[in-house]
């Protein structure tokens, strides 16, 4: 669906993007991650043809990106903005038509989405009469009104209360299931793990990690295991370099163990089972957030 090939972009003294490549298929959500100033917005602006790359190419639906194909993209920028004095209906018609929809198709889309997201009463209101969260909702609808094949969402959840964030999340999943390809740029790591199929992590204009979410997580696993058991486990365990226990309300113990490289987990489990009644056992994969912090070295 979308293929970015070795794209580079330099500004006066700064390299915004350095040989960035990315592939995104339809029916997938791709998380675009990176600290502030990493080059995410630069990449998005090149994909949407707002700026041109110094080198590299962007392909969309198998064709080299050109202005006529842009209407197949829906872009929700991080910095939102609509006309404050214009009614919601007028704005929706205006933006829809700018995306190439006919008047009739525009009205149809507006009715469908406004009905679905319970926004029918807002139609005649001016934007400035709506709350921040309502405005965000309007903006989201304007982005998807023209049924884009590629949806670029930059921090789509900011400004929403948990209830509306959930509604929007479900709509995003719904669009994905209908075959849209979604590029999701966000700082909310929990939503990355929950929503994204693939991730691309950018830092200082370079791609640091790329791949399927669980594959990336296992790539960065650190032989950490979690055991939940009943009874007391006092003896020192062979092959465990670090261990921290926590007694839970039901009297069981939750123990996190760092296992030395090369040591068999099978042996460890047997050791433990000799002493206590083992209830749960699982390998701990690092969260995307942990990987992000480890690689980028900054808090988010």
């Amino acid at each position, binding site marked *: 669906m979308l293929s970015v090939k070795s794209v580079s972009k330099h500004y006066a003294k700064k390299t915004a993007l350095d040989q960035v490549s990315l592939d995104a298929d339809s029916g997938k959500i791709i998380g675009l991650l990176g600290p502030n100033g990493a080059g995410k917005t630069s990449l998005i602006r090149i994909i949407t043809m*707002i700026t041109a790359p110094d080198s590299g190419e962007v392909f969309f639906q198998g064709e080299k990106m050109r202005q006529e194909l842009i209407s197949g993209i829906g*872009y929700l920028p991080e910095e939102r903005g609509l006309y404050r004095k214009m009614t919601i209906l007028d704005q929706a018609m205006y933006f829809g038509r700018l995306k190439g929809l006919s008047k009739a198709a525009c009205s149809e889309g507006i009715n469908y989405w406004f009905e679905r997201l319970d926004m029918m009463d807002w139609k005649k209101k001016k934007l400035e009469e709506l709350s921040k969260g309502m405005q965000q909702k309007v903006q989201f609808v304007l982005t998807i009104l023209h049924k884009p094949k590629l949806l670029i969402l930059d921090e789509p959840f900011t400004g929403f209360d948990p209830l509306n964030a959930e509604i929007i999340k479900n709509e995003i999943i719904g669009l994905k299931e209908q075959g849209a390809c979604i590029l999701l740029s966000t700082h909310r790591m929990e939503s990355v793990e929950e929503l994204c199929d693939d991730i691309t992590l950018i830092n200082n204009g370079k791609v640091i990690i790329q791949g399927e979410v669980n594959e990336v997580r296992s790539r960065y696993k650190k032989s950490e295991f979690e055991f939940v058991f009943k009874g007391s486990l006092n003896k020192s365990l062979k092959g465990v370099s670090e261990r921290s226990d926590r007694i839970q309300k039901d009297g069981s113990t939750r123990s996190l163990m760092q296992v030395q490289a090369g040591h068999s987990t099978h042996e460890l489990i047997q050791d433990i089972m000799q002493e206590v009644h083992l209830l749960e056992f699982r390998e701990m994969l690092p969260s995307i957030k942990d990987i992000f912090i480890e690689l980028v070295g900054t808090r988010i």
Partner: protein
Amino acid sequence: MRNIALVTGREYTSRVRKKSFIVMTLIGPLLLAAFYGAIIWLAMSDTQNDDKHEILVVDESGLFSQGIDPNENLFFTVNPNDTNEDSYYGTLIIPSDFTIDQPNGARYLSSESLNIVEQSTMENQLEKSIKEKKLVRSGLLKETLDSLNTDVQISAAKISDGEIKENNTMINAAVGFAGAFFIYLFIFLYGVQVMKGVAEEKSNRIVEVIISSVKPFDLMLGKILGIALVGLTQVLIWIGLSAALMAIITPLLTSGAMNPEDAAQLIQQGQIAAPSAQMNVLAALFQLDFATLIFGFLFYFITGYLLYSAMFAAIASAVDSETDTQQFMFPITIPLIFSIVVAQSVVLKDPNGDLATWLSMIPFTAPIIMMVRLPFGVENWQLVLSMLFMIFGFIGVTWLASRIYRVGILMYGKKPSYKEIFKWMTYKG
């Protein structure tokens, strides 16, 4: 093209629906009509001052026992039998030591303060009397003196395409300058709207959303054209309503006098030999080539606006907020301010001089300078050349402005320097 039309449409409809637009559109012609009415009224009242005042002269010197010559408004009664001061406009006292060689000590007393015209009239009449007395003393006859007085009036007319047209420099200057002033006002008025619109889109981050659907150039041009249409709508309504109002006002103000159009015709046919000053003014007004003037006004208003608003758009795109625009506004508006200042002095004095001709060719000054020159008559080749330059100037400036706009509109954070703005013009893609 479709997107430019959509942007233009949005700019237009969102603005003409505003209350402020409707109010201004309706009030404008009233103001214009009032302005026009005031000019006519002043022109008329100047020549139609019928007030006659009788001045009581108490002549103790005996010099003016034969009377003092009156003029149109003041006449003098010297030492009458009835000296009831209340029935006179004022009292002029000539002391006994007042002589033709030492005419000192004359005093004027009245309940109302004397205006400057009346005072000089009175002085002139006394001086005239004394002068005559001196001439008589040197041996001239009164009859000879009377025959010396002659009255010559020149009525200026202009030959154009073999036709003789009434010409009044003051009217030409007033019409030209009024037109130029309106262009100046409109460029600012609507240019600032473009600037505010761009600043709004940038500071509200609308541009981030919209720019993925519309090319920056289309967005800028759509906005400029939309507001141009708003301006054109407003001006055309103004011209229409003003014409209607003037058609109502003119006969009211000139009732009793001859219809100015008829007068103009009669003057042209030579049927009225010596037109009065009042007739001259109105005839000259009606003999102006309104078609060329209105066309010229609309052309220079639109192209001047397009040229300047492209620059205003570029400025607004380069900075983060409206308040930061000031720094860049000034250098851009210098040619505009310069031309309105020059128009008042140099151009009005010599509308076909070198400076006026050159300035009316430069697109930055032409809208104002050419408008001032138009009522005086401009040669066709000059007008055509100036209009061509205007069109090329607009295209060139818009292209440059769009280069700045395209980069500036997405640049946040710091106020750029002039150097950076020039650099933006050369960015690729």
